[in-house]
């Protein structure tokens, strides 16, 4: 009996260790005192964090990446959620075409996208500005929003929407009071993916951020090509800490909301 519980737990634990270990290495290396990547580090220190926080060359791209990603989240989530709602109700043939179109950024090689977009954006006058980046990243982020929201939509019992209509809610009212709250987890996950997509995007940024709109991944890239120093590990660690904090915070908020409900009841 014990064996049937402990064995699977061990297997899962090992797989999770496999997932986490390289990340742990990155975190540890970020506190390294060495000037090159080595593990375990010869000694520890905060010099790479110091290097990061004292350099406008790192901070400026960080801010740019953050606000570009923020704008991408807004655009991709808005367009993607609307489209997911529409696509779900399209006739089959139209749905397949639309889904294929929306999902295509997942499979077209990045370099082809980048060159193609560069030519087009040069014509549109969008090269070298954050606006161009936001537009391009929105295209790349949208598949994640659409798939995530579509999945949420597919999981909704159609009778809930019918119930709302039968209770006198207009289609608009039904959407805002029933459908939207129900797909909110899917929308949030899509938004999260959209953020990561933009925040970590490099290849298109290499091409179209031309005039000084240097994003964080691009800054890392410029550094990484020929030298590998732990500053990038420090940047990654900061991102990880931020993410975990956000996920934990969201979890605690939800927990508290649930607890309140239980208390009232």
């Amino acid at each position, binding site marked *: 009996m014990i064996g049937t519980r402990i064995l699977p737990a061990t297997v899962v634990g090992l797989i999770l260790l496999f997932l986490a270990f390289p990340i742990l290495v990155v975190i540890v290396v970020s506190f390294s005192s*060495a*000037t*090159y*990547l*080595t593990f375990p580090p010869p000694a520890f220190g905060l010099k790479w964090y110091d290097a990061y926080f004292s350099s406008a*060359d790192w901070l400026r791209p960080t801010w740019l990446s953050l606000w570009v990603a923020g704008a991408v989240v807004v655009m991709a989530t808005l367009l993607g959620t609307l489209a997911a709602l529409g696509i779900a109700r399209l006739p089959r043939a139209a749905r397949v075409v639309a889904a294929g179109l929306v999902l295509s*950024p*997942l*499979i*077209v*090689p*990045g*370099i082809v*996208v980048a*060159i193609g977009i*560069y*030519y087009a954006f*040069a*014509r549109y*006058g969008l*090269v*070298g500005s954050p606006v161009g980046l936001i537009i391009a990243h929105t295209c*790349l982020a949208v598949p*994640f929003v659409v798939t995530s929201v579509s999945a949420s939509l597919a999981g909704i019992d159609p009778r809930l929407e019918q119930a709302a209509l039968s209770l006198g809610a207009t289609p608009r009212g039904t959407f805002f009071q029933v459908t939207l709250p129900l797909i909110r987890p899917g929308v949030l996950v899509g938004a999260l*993916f959209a953020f*990561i*997509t933009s925040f*970590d*995007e*490099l*290849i*298109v940024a*290499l*091409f179209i*951020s*031309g*005039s*000084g709109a*240097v994003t964080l991944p*691009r*800054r890392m*890239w*410029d*550094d*990484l*090509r*020929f*030298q*590998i*120093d732990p500053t990038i590990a420090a940047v990654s660690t900061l991102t990880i800490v931020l993410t975990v904090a956000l996920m934990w915070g969201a979890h605690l908020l939800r927990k508290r909301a649930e607890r309140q409900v239980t208390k009232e009841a």
Partner: protein
Amino acid sequence: MSKHHSIRFGRRATLGLLGAGLAAPFIRPAAAQAAWPEQTTIPDILKGSGEVRIAGFGGTMNEAQIKAYYEPFEKISGIKVRAFPGSDPTKIKAMVETGNVEWDLAQLSRGSIMNLQKRGDYFEKIDYDIIDSGVDPAYRFEYGLEMLVWAQVLAYRKDLVKGEPKGWADFWDTKKFPGERAMYGTTSGGFPEMEFALMAAGVPPDKVYPIDIDKALASYEKIKKDVIKWWDTGAVPIQLLTDREVAMTTVWNGRMAALQAAGVPAEISWSQGLSKRDAWGIPKGAKNKANAMKFVAYSTMAIPQARIAFAIPYGSVNNASNEYIPPDRLAVLPSAPDIKKQLINYNYDWWIDNREAAVSRFNKWLLS
């Protein structure tokens, strides 16, 4: 997320762009110790107004260039310099074709420039009337001017290799110098080091070009099983040396000094290395073409050329530069007389004409 797998790793590691990475934070404190030479006057013809938009490689290379010649040029010429990262021949092609020329000047290689020029008209001609006479004629060509000298050389770990390997016959000799090897591959736009294969097979350095591809591949065959990595970007061989994954590898010289400074017992063997160069090219239709020309002329003068070597271990194209560089610094530069004579000049012209054939033959050989 799709971009993770599509990041172009060595996209700009093409032709002369290779030089970019040599921009390591090369013992920055040490460089700051010696006084940098200052250029106090320039001919009036190099003065002007407005701006010049220069594309380099970003990162520490950019920092070095700012200090070496962007800032002094602004002060002395009255022309404002705006620096952009991410210079790349594919972008120049796209820019010129779409008429959206964002840069007035780009750091490329003679190979990239001539390769593009072969396919159309992408660059302005260089006005050699205003170029400093100290610039070696070898570095001059019609659509660009070379401005930075670096080297692709043999490097080894002293603790793993007994003795001092010299030249490619030693690199190939895994009995005398046992241990794994790494060499530059073609993965993402790289150039196979056929010159080295030929020299290993006994071809004298001055007879390497034109390259006999068959002979080179036959020579490669002898070392194939010992090459555990065909690297595609400058950071990889450095990391391989650091991690003791290989005993010997080819490297770009720039990062080695930083590695040594960090305490890794690695050494460069300059003998039979390749001397490569970065070049300035002015994209066709550049708005500030005249300012770009002025900057090209300024940055290849002796003192600005010397200054860059204070920041990063790159050589100068101006024969007069060496007198401004302290001897201990000069000793690690590929343009130092003692080192320069051990290197062979990379033949961009041969590679422009034969790159596709050489690379696809190499690919086929590698996969066979």
